[in-house]
């Protein structure tokens, strides 16, 4: 030891932390996404709780208006970018390769890079609370409010640079998933044999590919305006403020579907599994998913009906918006008819999926009401809209995420989450959710605008706000039960076998937790629901497509972490207007990229003798238990 050597990482190689920091395993990266997503969920949740506590009575002095605007902005930004997206990408990362019978994603190195970019972006954004003040112009940061003249201080700079960095990570993730699904499906897994969650991952990744670039452009222009005094959005300098709205919503509307489509996949898989039935109308489900993904790009102007773009523009975008209701309705009825005639088991995962249906229908119908342009002139920017999008985002995304976590937790950790605690979590959260947001529709009709730190007192409005805040305490309590469940389960949870739910898809053919190589032998897929088919028409074992042999594995790498740290330094330096340090940060980024370009590392092989627990032998034929 001692002296210089060419292996700078020798000292920590093999330690657990270094292993997680450098991992390129899609499963570990998935868990990293889920873990950090849950931490941000707590932060965003505390922000939400503080918002509701401020609004419990009118003229409350609990927080100042400035702090309120920061809380409100960070709550929205955190929940969308640092909670919904990473949790979904994490679950996709974990489950999707298993569902298509792949040993990894197409680009393991990029996968790691995507996670670390997301993570440092989120970290940067949240550091704003401690250094200089959080952004306060709303999660949509409309110009000119978000320009230096009206938002002095670094708050919005944190928003611009934090989101830019984590946005690059999301884009990389999307590309990776598309290539994985196109190239790495197991033999016999045709497109129309892919589970619905894989399908929605596929469409979502395509949305990422097309939706993130407009955001990148918008953030770049705003950065130039704020840091270098250009005038893209400054009217005084000949700029145009409405352009920001267009760019933001060309990203922002597909974003809504980015976080909703994957959970549609979750619901399809969960409802089918726990009803013991194949999915009703598979082909129309796939078609509806693709159609929703497509229309998602055609409707952004419905966020701008009050911008005076003219009756014709408003009408066209109103019709396009209403059209989304049709494929969504197809999905709702297909889920109902999947359960129809089935044998429904109400596990916690299933409860969350089932409760989603009426909740999301509520959010969907108010969505159509918002597409009625003259009515939207009244609804717009009022609490009606707040109620609507929480019904959609909580009613679909969050319920879906909980469902997915309860469903795949045993596969990820090898242990089942406790069902009793799970049901407490479910009922408290669901009841709290409806108590919080159902009354808010009426707040909007009684003239309460959104994003206000106080409201004009009147008996009805005061009561509804009080009820709403009480409801948010219910959600808080539910979430505490969930966290408690995680802790208890990690300590003394029930061990999950390979197939704890009597599953239908490929991930339930391999041991829990999944071995690092996923499948000792790649499965041969001969139908939709391959495991179910094997249980029905065979010995419960999905046939293997290859003999047991050596498996190629990618090597861990610390380079993604280093690139991300370089980006973090550059981003933070720009916020501090320290351009010299920013250049150093970018030099680090490009230098590490250079190192990567010349690196000779072909990974390693796991030989057949090293493989334990031969993967395809696990379908225990437990149907009908």
């Amino acid at each position, binding site marked *: 030891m001692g002296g210089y050597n060419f292996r700078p990482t020798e000292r920590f190689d093999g330690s657990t932390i270094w292993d997680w920091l450098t991992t390129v395993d899609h499963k570990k990266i998935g868990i990293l996404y889920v873990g950090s997503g849950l931490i941000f969920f707590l932060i965003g949740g505390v922000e939400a709780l503080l918002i509701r506590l401020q609004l419990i009575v009118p003229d409350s002095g609990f927080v100042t208006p400035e702090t309120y605007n920061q809380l409100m902005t960070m709550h929205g930004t955190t929940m969308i970018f640092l909670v919904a997206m990473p949790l979904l990408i994490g679950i996709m990362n974990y489950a999707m390769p298993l569902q298509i019978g792949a040993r990894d994603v197409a680009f393991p190195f990029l996968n790691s890079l995507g996670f670390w970019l997301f993570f440092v972006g989120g970290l940067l954004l949240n550091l704003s609370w401690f250094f200089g003040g959080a952004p306060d112009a709303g999660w949509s940061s409309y110009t000119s409010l978000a320009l230096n003249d009206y938002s002095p201080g670094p708050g919005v700079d944190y928003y611009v640079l934090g989101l830019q960095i984590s946005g690059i990570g999301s884009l990389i993730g999307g590309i990776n998933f598309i290539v994985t699904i196109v190239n790495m499906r197991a033999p016999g897994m045709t497109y129309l044999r892919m589970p619905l969650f894989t399908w929605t991952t596929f469409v979502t990744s395509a949305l990422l590919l097309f939706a993130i670039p407009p955001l990148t452009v918008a953030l770049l222009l705003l950065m130039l305006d704020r840091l270098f005094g250009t005038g893209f959005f400054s009217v005084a300098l000949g700029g145009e403020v409405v352009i920001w709205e267009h760019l933001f919503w060309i990203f922002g509307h597909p974003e809504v579907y980015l976080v909703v489509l994957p959970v549609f996949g979750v619901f399809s898989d969960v409802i089918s599994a726990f009803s013991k039935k*194949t999915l009703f109308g598979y082909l129309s489900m796939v078609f509806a998913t693709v159609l929703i993904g497509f229309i998602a790009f055609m409707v952004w102007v419905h966020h701008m009906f009050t911008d005076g773009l003219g009756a014709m523009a408003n009408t066209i975008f109103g019709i396009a918006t209403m059209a989304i209701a049709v494929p969504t309705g197809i999905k709702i009825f297909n889920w109902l008819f999947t359960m129809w*005639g089935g044998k*429904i088991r*109400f596990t916690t995962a299933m409860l969350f999926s089932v409760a989603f249906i009426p909740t999301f229908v509520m959010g969907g119908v108010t969505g159509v009401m918002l597409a009625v*342009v003259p009515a939207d002139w*009244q609804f717009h920017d009022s609490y009606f809209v707040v109620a609507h999008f929480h019904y959609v985002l909580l009613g679909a995304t969050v319920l879906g995420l909980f469902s997915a976590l309860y469903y795949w937790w045993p596969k990820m950790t090898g242990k089942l989450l406790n069902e009793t605690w799970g049901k407490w979590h479910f009922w408290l959260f669901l009841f709290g959710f409806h108590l919080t947001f159902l009354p808010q529709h009426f707040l909007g009709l009684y003239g309460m605008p959104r994003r206000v730190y106080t409201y004009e007192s009147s008996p009805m409005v005061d009561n509804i706000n009080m009820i709403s805040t009480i409801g948010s305490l219910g959600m808080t309590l539910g979430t505490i039960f969930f966290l408690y469940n995680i802790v208890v389960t990690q300590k003394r949870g029930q061990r999950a076998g390979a197939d704890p739910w009597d599953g239908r898809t490929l991930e339930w053919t391999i041991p829990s937790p999944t071995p690092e190589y996923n499948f000792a032998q790649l499965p041969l897929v001969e139908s939709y629901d391959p495991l179910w088919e094997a249980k029905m028409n065979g010995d419960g074992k999905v046939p293997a497509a290859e003999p047991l042999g050596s498996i190629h594995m990618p090597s861990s790498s610390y380079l993604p972490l280093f690139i991300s740290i370089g980006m973090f330094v550059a981003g933070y330096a720009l916020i501090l207007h320290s351009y010299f340090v920013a250049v150093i940060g970018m030099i680090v980024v490009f230098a590490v990229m250079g190192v990567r370009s010349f690196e000779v590392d072909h990974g390693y092989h796991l030989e057949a003798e090293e493989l334990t627990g031969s993967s395809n032998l696990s379908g225990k034929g437990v149907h009908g238990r």
Partner: protein
Amino acid sequence: MRQMKKWLVLLCSFLGISVSAGCTDANLSVLDPAGPVAEEQLWLMKLSIAIMVVVFLVVSVVFVYVVIRYREKPGDTSIPKQVEGSTILELTWTIIPIILLVILSIPAFRITFSQTEIPPKEESITINVIGHQYWWEYIYPDQDIRSSQDLHIPTGKKVNLVLRSDDVIHSYWAPNLGGKQNVIPGKDVPLVLQADKPGIYKGKCGKICGSGHALMNFRVVAQTPAEFDSWVQGMKNPKSKATSEKAALGETLFSQNCMGCHAVSGGGFKSQGVVGPDLTGFSQRLLVAGVVENNRENLGLWLENPQSIKPGNRMPAFEFLTDEQRDGLIEYLMNLK
């Protein structure tokens, strides 16, 4: 069973509150229209709610039936029939929603076009509305007057507002009279409203515009055409001269401290400040700063510490005035007619 009960309760409360809502907080409620624009919009809302309640009920009935009927019975180990789909059913729930949407969209878009039409000059009055952080300025080009915070309009006439912002995006919203439109820097956005009943209607800024956003309120004073005309005449010939010794002190203080930002026409001041609200005819103003009732006490509090009433506003505190000076200034302002 629990599931079904909960949903029934939720649904009943939803329908129940909708019906009874008309009688609460009449001045800021979408459900209490005071003119044809807001009435048409409410009608559309009712139509869409009716259609959507039907949709929700259909889904709920199927949902409740399925969830109760098809629970797994203990001991029943049979495998349910694996149904792939049904073309007829799938077509049904594709076509019926399309029909419902067509029914909804035809009146919706007819009204979109009719309500964005700029009314002819003879039947309407045009007012330019300028949004500022965090107050409203009104210019009546045909009447050649300027006012702020309270929008005076004649009843029974289409009011053609031309909205524009001086700084950030705001949104002009008087729910009883019609929907909102954004107030955007560098761009004129039209908004047509109409009040048929005389009265005072509350208004709000809808778009977050900074720390004072929540309190960027205004009032719409709808008057009969005769009353409106006399208000216009009053604004054209305002009584802005001090009438008492006390007020004269205030007038002097005003010219020394206030006219840089605030205008009072007819007072003979050297400058007509445009940074803050125009205070001509201040005594008729309903609210101080759009937040608290306009009386001597509140005005005194406002002069002493404006941030305590409306956080984020640009008015400096005049806590250095002696009691006598403050009383004089209040006296002067409260006599502006």
